[in-house]
């Protein structure tokens, strides 16, 4: 178990800067998720922590010790790759035992550790198989098992669930969370899926273009997004953005999540607008209304249950003032105090 610290970490490939000075502190035993759109540098950052990419500038500290120049093999971390990267010519047992053999662990100890990990991940019956004879979920478990056997100080996951089908993904998600609860090891998890981030993380780091946009617990990010990007990235469907003016400031963006908009009038102080329904999606337990406002701006509304409306109809929607977010219209789109 270990704590991790990144101080002004920069990564450059020739002239191109892909990581622009990232500061981050991961506490011992914490489950931190890096999330962001593809190309945001989250995988690069993880690979730098792993030691597979060099750090151009800044410091990388594990338990207070600078490890910039320590090789991946010596850092004592374990990584689960997106493609699992199981050794295809070895059996499951050999895959699990490889790291321990490299460390010169005695045979009996290797056997005990492999058997224990296999039991924990329900791989006992598959030890003599080769990776090609396993299903996607089983391969995923072997990849995790390979990380577990040598008790790493930090687990790194690089989009480990993206190759699985939806059902299996939900199952593996809870298995990884359960694993974290059981082992209590620091884990860093990279994903582009905000649902994975929200459900698994102790803290989420939102990245964009090699910069940290916001760090916080899932609910902090949801309730108090630091800027327009985070607000749009966290939550599904996306937050609605309407241009408008608030007291003391003209020309701002007003953000409100689809699930906070109510149909018809409400008692709470709110902004009431009339919208035309473009399209309706009825999911049974919930309904999504895709509407257009008079000015042509789009508005998505999420209501519980089923609605008796049709496209083309006009509806009255209420935007509760307490649930709105205000952002400036600049490139950064920083959040402003609610006016």
């Amino acid at each position, binding site marked *: 178990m270990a704590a991790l610290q990144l101080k002004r970490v920069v990564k450059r490939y020739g002239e191109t800067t892909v990581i622009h000075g990232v500061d981050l502190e991961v506490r011992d035993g914490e489950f931190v998720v890096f999330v962001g759109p593809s190309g945001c540098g989250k995988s690069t950052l993880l690979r730098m922590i*792993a*030691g*597979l990419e060099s750090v151009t500038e800044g410091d990388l500290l594990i338990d207070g010790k600078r490890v910039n120049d320590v*090789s*991946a*093999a*010596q850092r004592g*971390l*374990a*990584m689960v*790759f*997106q*493609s699992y*990267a*199981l*050794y*295809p*010519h070895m059996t499951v047992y050999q895959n699990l035992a*490889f*790291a321990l053999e*490299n*460390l010169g662990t005695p045979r009996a100890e290797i056997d005990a550790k492999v058997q224990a990990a296999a039991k924990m991940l329900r791989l006992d019956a598959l030890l003599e198989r080769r990776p090609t004879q396993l299903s996607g979920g089983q391969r995923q478990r072997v990849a995790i098992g*390979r990380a577990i056997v*040598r008790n790493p100080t930090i687990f790194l996951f690089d989009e480990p669930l993206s190759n699985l089908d939806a059902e299996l993904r939900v199952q593996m998600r809870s298995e990884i969370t359960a694993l974290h609860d059981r082992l209590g090891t620091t884990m860093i998890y990279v994903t582009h899926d905000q649902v994975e981030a929200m459900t698994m993380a102790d803290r989420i780091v939102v990245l964009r273009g090699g910069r940290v946009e916001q760090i916080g617990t899932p609910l902090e990010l949801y309730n108090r997004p630091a800027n327009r990007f985070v607000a749009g990235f966290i939550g599904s469907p996306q937050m609605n953005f309407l241009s408008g003016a608030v007291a003391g400031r003209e020309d701002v963006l007003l953000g409100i999540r689809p699930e906070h908009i109510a149909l018809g009038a409400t008692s709470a102080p709110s902004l009431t607008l009339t919208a035309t329904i473009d399209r309706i999606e009825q999911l049974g337990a919930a309904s999504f209304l895709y509407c257009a406002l008079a000015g042509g701006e789009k508005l998505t509304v999420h209501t519980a249950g089923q609605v008796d409306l049709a496209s083309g109809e006009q509806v009255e929607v209420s935007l509760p003032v307490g649930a709105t977010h205000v952002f400036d219209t600049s490139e950064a789109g920083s959040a402003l105090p609610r006016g």
Partner: protein
Amino acid sequence: MRNLAAMLSARRGRGKPDWTDWLSYAYLLLGLVLMFFPVLWLVLSSFKSAAALNEFPPQLLPYGQKTVEVAGHEAPLPLYRVTLPDGAVRELAEVRRIGIQATLIDPAAPEQEYKVNIRDRKPVREFRLALGNYTEIFNKFSFGTFLWNSVFITVVATLITLLFNAMAAFALSKYRFAGRDTVFLLIISTLMIPPTIILVPNFLVVSQLGLLNSLWGVIWPAVATPTGVFLLRQYMLTIPDELIEAARMDHASEWRIFWRIVMPLSAPALAVLAIFSVMWRWNDFLWPLIVLSRTEKFTLQLALNAFQGELTTEWHYLLAMTVITLVPVTLVFAFLQKHITTGIAASGVK
């Protein structure tokens, strides 16, 4: 067996054989005869005695004269079909021959002798393999030494070739370093230089190193092959980098990554290179001819060459030796050909 039958009766459609089927089979048969008949002819001839080889018209199968043991005579006597003066035809054994007069006896009744003109007797022949060709070369010449020299050079050179070329290919395919592409291009560009051009410089180097008349003088200049580096590098490029990174995360040293991950996964390409290397080294003639001048260091190919005397050539031994030199390459090819096809198939998928 069923696969073989299915392969031999494969047809274009499901119904009756099409005319294209006949054409393909005719073409394949022609190829088979063209390619295989000389080899078959060689193998059959290698079992012929020296006399049978000189026979005209030549026979396809090896034949030898039938002999019989007759009481009172030490050596077995050759059998002849004799037309006696009275017109009867009998099989008799020849005791002696003086000029055109031959003296023969009946093996069943050896007391009576028949004297006949040698034109009236024809040898009785039977199918017989002259296995002596094979057994005698081991005693008559230092064939065992030649064989050992050839095997030693081939095996050692192939092992070193595989190791060195794989290490070069690993570095060129999996490490990022300045000048990598230049190095690779340099290695590949040596393919454009014909070996005969570097024959003299090579000889000077080997001579300076004191490796003349040493088997290592044949091995060392041959182990670094651009073809091998190219072949293995291209194959190793298809091994995902993530596997190597995973091994690095698994505390593996670079040597262990090479030995435990990259080498086993390159097995198909290594098999192809092994076959090439065995064929190259086994059939190599010019370079060993230059480096090795003492008879006890000769390889089989050099021995075969030395065997063709200025005045006489003992063809029956030469043919037997040629067959023996063909065997290892054939075996290597037969056992490793599965790897060649899987190698091509694997590199074709990804």
